[in-house]
């Protein structure tokens, strides 16, 4: 009985995913989905899945109700007007339904859509963590783990053997020797961990639109990497001429004025990586988003820090978001990376990836550039 509805549910979820997949490009380039993110679920508005019937035009429908009220009284809203709610407005009366997908399902869709390769963890050693399983029995232990059934059986046996068991008054009193306790064994399990460092330029030239693009793109990168690794740690760095580590909230909302020194962020990132995420046990990703409008003399220095940091990273991504100024840092970094041994793995996979994000529609390609290498 149970299997049958589960089959139908699974099929229904497949259909939903199919609908989302069809519209994925639109979902990716719009940031509204981010607001709908729960802990593990994202709720997405899709056109109502319905089986069509011949029916009357619902507009101007009539009905009979019951209760108080004068002629002319308004009972309530029937349908929202055009233009309210996401997606509505292009088709009158097109009803939307909210469906929930887990972040994992979303990542899978993204992966299929962009044909992203699965990531082979690069960490030289896996991080081993102990996992406890309660699967054995001991004679000693805390009372909270006492195995009631076994203890009872042993006490019963003992009392029968020793003749203290009275069937008319079956009182079983366990003594120390009767007691059994549940016990655990620890099994080390390999665990590939990833750390992601997001860096963003918050200088005056980065406007709201640019930050929104960064926000959307990092959401998807995050979703994908979380899908690939068992546990993911994220750190956020903002910079203008000085860099500082901030929390996620501040990262997306902080606006500063002033110049730009990209090297400050890179140096801070390098410190963090060296101190907290040794590459023997971590897969470290660093992404930096800027409009590329760097203070001239700083660019060379920034490149050198990148070179120094690269061996400790799985991937270094630089995304340049177009703003009203024309940033030069992208070309500087590209030139610098040309022929740099640290910028590629021995197998030729790029370790340093740059991407130019012109507008929202370019987010998709940019994600593909960053994650399409499988590094």
């Amino acid at each position, binding site marked *: *009985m*149970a299997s*049958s*509805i589960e*089959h*139908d*549910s*699974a*099929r*229904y*979820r*497949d*259909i939903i995913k199919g609908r989302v997949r069809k519209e994925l490009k639109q979902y990716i380039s719009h940031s509204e989905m981010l607001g709908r993110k729960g802990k593990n679920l994202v709720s997405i508005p899709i056109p109502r*899945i319905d*089986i*069509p*019937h*011949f*029916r*009357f*035009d*619902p*507009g*101007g*429908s*009539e*009905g*009979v*109700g*019951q*209760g*108080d*009220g*004068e*002629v*002319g*009284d*308004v*009972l*309530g*809203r*029937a*349908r*929202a*007007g*055009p*233009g*309210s709610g996401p997606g509505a407005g292009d088709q009158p*009366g097109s009803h939307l339904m909210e469906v929930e997908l887990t972040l994992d399902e979303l990542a899978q869709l993204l992966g299929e859509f962009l044909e992203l390769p699965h990531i082979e963890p690069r960490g030289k050693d896996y991080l081993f963590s102990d996992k406890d399983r309660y699967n054995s029995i001991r004679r000693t232990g805390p009372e909270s783990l006492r195995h009631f059934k076994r203890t009872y059986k042993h006490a019963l046996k003992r009392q029968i053997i020793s003749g203290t068991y009275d069937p008319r008054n079956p009182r079983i009193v366990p003594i120390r020797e009767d007691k059994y306790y549940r016990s655990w064994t620890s099994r080390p399990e390999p665990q590939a961990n990833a750390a992601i460092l997001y860096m963003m330029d918050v200088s005056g030239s980065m406007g709201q639109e640019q930050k929104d693009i960064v926000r959307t793109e990092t959401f998807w990168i995050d979703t994908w990497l979380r899908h690939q690794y068992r546990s993911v740690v994220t750190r956020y760095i903002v910079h203008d001429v000085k860099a500082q580590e901030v929390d996620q909230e501040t990262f997306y909302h902080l606006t500063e004025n002033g110049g730009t020194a990209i090297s400050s962020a890179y140096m801070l990132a390098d410190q963090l990586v060296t101190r907290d995420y040794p590459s023997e046990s971590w897969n470290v990703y660093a992404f930096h988003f800027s409009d590329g409008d760097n203070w001239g003399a700083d660019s060379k220095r920034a490149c050198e820090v990148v070179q120094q940091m690269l061996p400790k990273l799985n991937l270094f991504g630089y995304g340049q978001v177009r703003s009203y100024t024309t940033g030069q840092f992208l070309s500087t970094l590209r030139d610098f990376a040309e022929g740099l041994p640290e910028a590629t793995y021995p197998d030729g996979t790029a370790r340093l990836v740059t991407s130019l994000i012109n507008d929202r529609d370019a987010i998709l390609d940019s994600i593909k550039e960053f994650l399409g290498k499988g590094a």
Partner: protein
Amino acid sequence: MGSARDFPTLSALNTEIRAKALSYGLDPFDLAFEVVTFDQMNELAAFDGFPVRYPHWRFGMEYERLRKSYAYGLHIIYEMVINNDPCYAYLLEHNKLVDHKLVMAHVYAHSDFFKNNLWFSHTNRRMLDEMANHGTRMHRYVDRYGAEAVEQLIDTCLSIDDLIDPNAAFENLPIEFEHGDEDEEEAFRVSRFRAKDYMEDFVNPPGVLQAEREHQEKERREQRFPVQPMRDVLYFLLTHAPLKAWQADVLAMLREESYYFLPQRQTKIMNEGWAAYWHSKIMTESGLMSPSEVVDYADHNSGTLAISPGQLNPYKLGVELYRDIEERWNTGRFGPEWDSCTSREARRGWDKHVGLGRQKIFEVRRVYNDLGFIDTFLDREFALKSKFFVYKEKEGEAGESYYEIVSREFDQIKQTLLFQLTNGGRPIIFVEDANLHNRGELLLRHQYDGLELDKAYGQATLAAIQSLWTRPVHIATIYSGKSVLLSFDGKKHSESRFEG
């Protein structure tokens, strides 16, 4: 005491309530109660109460919806019962004992209704088995022809599964497939008289024979097929569309289920009203409840009968109308004498002590469906007492729409109500011509009575029919007072003026 798994208590309760129901004159099928968990209840509800159905995503969608709305505390399914002999009904595990009592009393009345109401008389009382058989057959087709193909066909059929003829439920139309044309000669039998050879031209002048043959041929060409417009579109497609055997079987199964569920839609008000009437009688008149349970009962009962603006509660309307009928037939407020009495004073105090009320409501539950029930018994006084009104959807300035009370006139209330109940509030569609333009195109006609078809849905449905019929499909309807033909030829939709 009171735990749901306390089967001896439940069983004793069942015996007691059954005896009570019988003592009132109810005549139910045997009832099999099953105690289920929330999850099982949601699953059963998604399957319309049946433990086994054919595989389809729609059930999964309904299940997810129910599960979510349960998780958010929006609803609890109290009772569910299926029309079968024996009737199956479900009790929710975590309900209180008083709820179980209420559900049992309620469900016995449903069972009585299933068994005795005329409109249910054609339904298969072994539907539980039949549904399981449908599941098995559908699974076999999935194995043989692939899940995609079967699902697509089911989607298509579900799109038109309401195009059946409520009156045809009682005729058992034979499902036979057309076999070629009749013998041409047989079809063209002209009135030739017997004559000797030399007299032939004189007795049977060639010109006359020729004219007669032409006339017949013309008549034949002009005769439409089907001869009468046919309301059971499913049946027509089943017998005349170029379907493979398995496809026809799928369509036939879904048509059968559609006819099975039809009376439940036709008698929603009567059936729920009947059950509400009897559960309140059984619960309050028989000492079933301990004093502490009375409040819980009253709470749930009033919840069942609650009204919300803009929605008609079938439980409430039904039970109150039964009570009104009972009262009227007890006091003799019917017949010519009552109808012709115009004195307000006399009408108010009218009581002829005829005491026919109980007998009358039993008769009503036997012969009426909702449409007849409302048409016959809902009168001006009842409408006034029930505070009915007509609401209409209106458009606001910002393009949003809202419902507004537009009338409290009795005539309009009744008309609107009857319209809502006619064909379940769905448009009435006929197959009019299966050989339109002499090119095997299918013409459907919407019997227009004031409301226009939803065009987007109509076109999508047309496409579904086309995929079965394979030749172009049209539906004639009316938009803004003009005859319009919506067409789909398998590739694109078109719209044209239509005279005919």
